[in-house]
């Protein structure tokens, strides 16, 4: 009895170690094996797959699509998928909808790692095109953003030579979909987040003109609050809407946001000096005086529904909320204007924003032709126009037009559109949790512990410099 357990122990330990080693090793080595299997299955299932049509006709193919949740987008995708399935007999679309934010990153990571997805909407917190990669001025002291990690790991298909890519405007291809001269994505639209929705009827009722400078805005809020209405509301429960709502202030203070990102890294710009400090003070007024009480309990979409009730004058948030607002059937006339963040009305003409969702193909999809056809369908100008109408994105195809009520409001401002800070900035490794000062609006009481703009500014700068390491 005793003797027999020796070999058993050896076996158990060896097994455990082998399994553990497999777990660790596969990152590099196992890849080819995995590809091998998928290729074999592909060959088996579509041996005569010379032309795209030949294989599809006879075979049941399921295209796995991962998309972030956004009600108008979901509606559009459902229709699009039905159409795609009708046009491509034998193909079914297996679309998974995941809420944007943390879970989305986990889903992308897990599904790519498991080779369990064909087409991905890149929406890893924030939902965006490719932001800035690691730039020279950052040195080594930085982690590459998730999209760059994905490409460098070889998980994303190079689609540079696909004709449908050319349907999009040059700027979007360059800024939002290209890494080291290759195109890996198509970007479906820009959004602006630095403006605010305005309740025209309420302003008329309380006798306030549409503010065009910061001082006018402060005065307007006082007047509105005095009438028992509220100046602004926001989706405070989700955290990010608070600081995104203040991006207009950031834009007014630093109109060149690429330079801001670089300046913070090089030390030419500091959060606790000059413009930076003034900005922190405005953030505080926005967070503490302008937002109505109790917004910490409102979710992002909930805040828009709440805004539709009519007793709030402004909702500073992204244009993507326009469809949600329309759906909530506001009983008032509304428009969308740049956030008047500067005392100089001239500086309040710009709309800042970012590229929003991008579609990518997993490099080892067993159905590359169908996946490409799927992207080609999404990029088709007619479909794209429908998409823009449904979602309210600012189009990245030169032929598309904005037809919505929002479009009317925003169209004249589009020549003043600029890409915002979010797309340029990465925090250095070792920086503290307060390092990204663009989010400081969400750190004031009642959202977090800070009550003094000056103290917070010093902390932000200290947290940032801790990562820059001198």
């Amino acid at each position: 009895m005793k003797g027999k357990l020796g070999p058993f122990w050896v076996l158990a330990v060896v097994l455990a170690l082998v399994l553990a080693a497999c777990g660790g090793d596969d990152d590099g080595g196992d890849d080819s094996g995995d590809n091998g299997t998928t290729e074999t299955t592909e060959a088996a299932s579509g041996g005569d797959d010379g032309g795209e049509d030949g294989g599809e006709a006879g075979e049941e193919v399921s295209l796995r699509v991962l998309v972030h949740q956004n009600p108008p987008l979901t509606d559009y995708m459902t229709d699009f998928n039905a159409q795609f399935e009708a046009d491509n007999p034998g193909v079914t679309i297996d679309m998974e909808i995941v809420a944007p934010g943390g879970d989305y990153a986990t889903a992308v990571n897990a599904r790519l790692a498991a080779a369990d997805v064909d087409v991905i909407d890149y929406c890893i917190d924030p939902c965006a095109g490719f932001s800035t990669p690691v730039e020279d001025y950052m040195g080594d002291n930085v982690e590459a953003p998730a999209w760059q990690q994905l490409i460098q790991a070889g998980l994303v298909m190079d689609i540079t030579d696909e004709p449908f890519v050319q349907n999009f405007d040059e700027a979007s291809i360059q800024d939002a979909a290209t890494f080291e001269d290759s195109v890996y994505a198509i970007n479906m639209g820009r959004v602006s987040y630095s403006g605010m929705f305005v309740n025209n009827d309420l302003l008329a009722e309380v006798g306030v003109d549409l503010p065009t400078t910061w001082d006018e805005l402060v005065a307007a809020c006082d007047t509105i609050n005095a009438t028992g209405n509220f100046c602004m509301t926001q989706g405070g429960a989700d955290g990010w809407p608070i600081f995104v709502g203040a991006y207009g202030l950031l834009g007014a203070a630093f109109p060149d946001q690429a330079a801001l990102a670089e300046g913070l890294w090089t030390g030419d710009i500091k959060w606790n000096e000059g413009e930076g400090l003034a900005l922190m003070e405005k953030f505080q007024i926005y967070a503490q005086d302008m937002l109505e009480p109790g917004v910490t309990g409102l979710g992002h979409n909930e805040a828009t529904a709440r805004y539709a009730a009519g007793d709030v004058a402004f909702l500073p948030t992204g244009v993507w909320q326009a469809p949600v607002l329309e759906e909530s059937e506001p009983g008032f006339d509304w428009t969308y204007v740049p956030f008047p963040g500067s005392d100089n009305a001239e500086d309040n003409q710009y709309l800042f924003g970012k590229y929003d969702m991008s579609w990518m193909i997993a490099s080892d999809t067993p159905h590359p032709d169908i996946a490409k056809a799927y992207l080609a369908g999404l990029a088709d100008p007619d479909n794209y126009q429908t998409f823009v109408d449904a979602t309210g994105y600012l189009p990245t195809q030169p032929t598309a037009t904005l037809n919505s009520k929002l479009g009317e409001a925003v169209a004249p401002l589009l020549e003043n559109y600029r890409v915002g800070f979010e797309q340029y900035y990465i925090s250095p490794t070792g920086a503290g949790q307060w390092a990204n000062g663009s989010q400081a609006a969400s750190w004031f009481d009642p959202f977090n512990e800070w009550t003094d703009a000056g103290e917070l500014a010093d902390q932000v700068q200290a947290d940032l410099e801790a990562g820059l390491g001198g």
Partner: protein
Amino acid sequence: MAVMKKSYLFGGEKRWRNLAPIYFLLPGVLFYFIIALGPSIATSIYSLTDASGLRGADVNWIGFDNYDEFLFQGLASRDNIDATLRTLRFCAIVTLVQFSIGLILALLVNQKLRGRTFFRTLFFMPVILGVVIQGLMWKLFLQPRGGPMATIFGWFGAQSEFLGGQPDEAFMWVIVVQIWANVGITMVIFLAGMQTISSDLYEAAKIDGASGWQLFRDVTWPQLTPAVNTNFLLNIIGSLQAWQLFLVLTGYKAGTQVLGYLVFAEGFGQTGEAPSFRQGFAAAASMVLFFLVLVIGFFANRFVTWRERKFL
């Protein structure tokens, strides 16, 4: 002993009977090695690499760089150490309060009161509902705009943003929900302990003139030792590793992170704002958690053994 075993149970002519226990042992032990021990050992190996966790990405040995970054680099280390201390605070408060309330509730419902079954069932109910329903119920209950708790606060002229506001307040409310959700288990274990105490002991003590508090101190408490120990250990280990309520209630909010959540967020890209996948770093953070649990668990265990020797 060994000889006896061999001759009676596992000896005999038939070879299969001789081997049987090992074969039957195998599945359980294999599960243990493959699912628990193997990965745990691998965690320590992972923690020495810069693995991202993405398929196909390079993995390099970087020695103790992850630990260095976690504990010493810049001000991120301050946040990590804060999260570590917060984990300890969470454990201490939850253990103490849940233990005490559980004991009081058990004493109350152990009396022969009409409706005590109802109360037992009610207090145990959240355990069955699970962490998501617990969290959603309380998110609703703690709505700062006119929710019930806000109304109660209003009666006293107080005001709070609850889960969405000051990190310290939010942290406290998570503790409240954690205790609310799990005190039922603690209560039931105490209750079972109380029902094993022979009524003769109480009668004898009463004859000696003991009453109320003395009865509790001299009879109930010492006799309750096994239940006390079980609850103590379950609470400590459970609360050190519990963080799912944070996920539901506050999200990854600055100033409320605990270690378990930090591991998950770093490893699976949930840290917000341009996240990266950093499973090597996350593994290092989980090793820190491991040492914490090990040290505290060790002392808790020593304490429990000491109590057993004292009372039993």
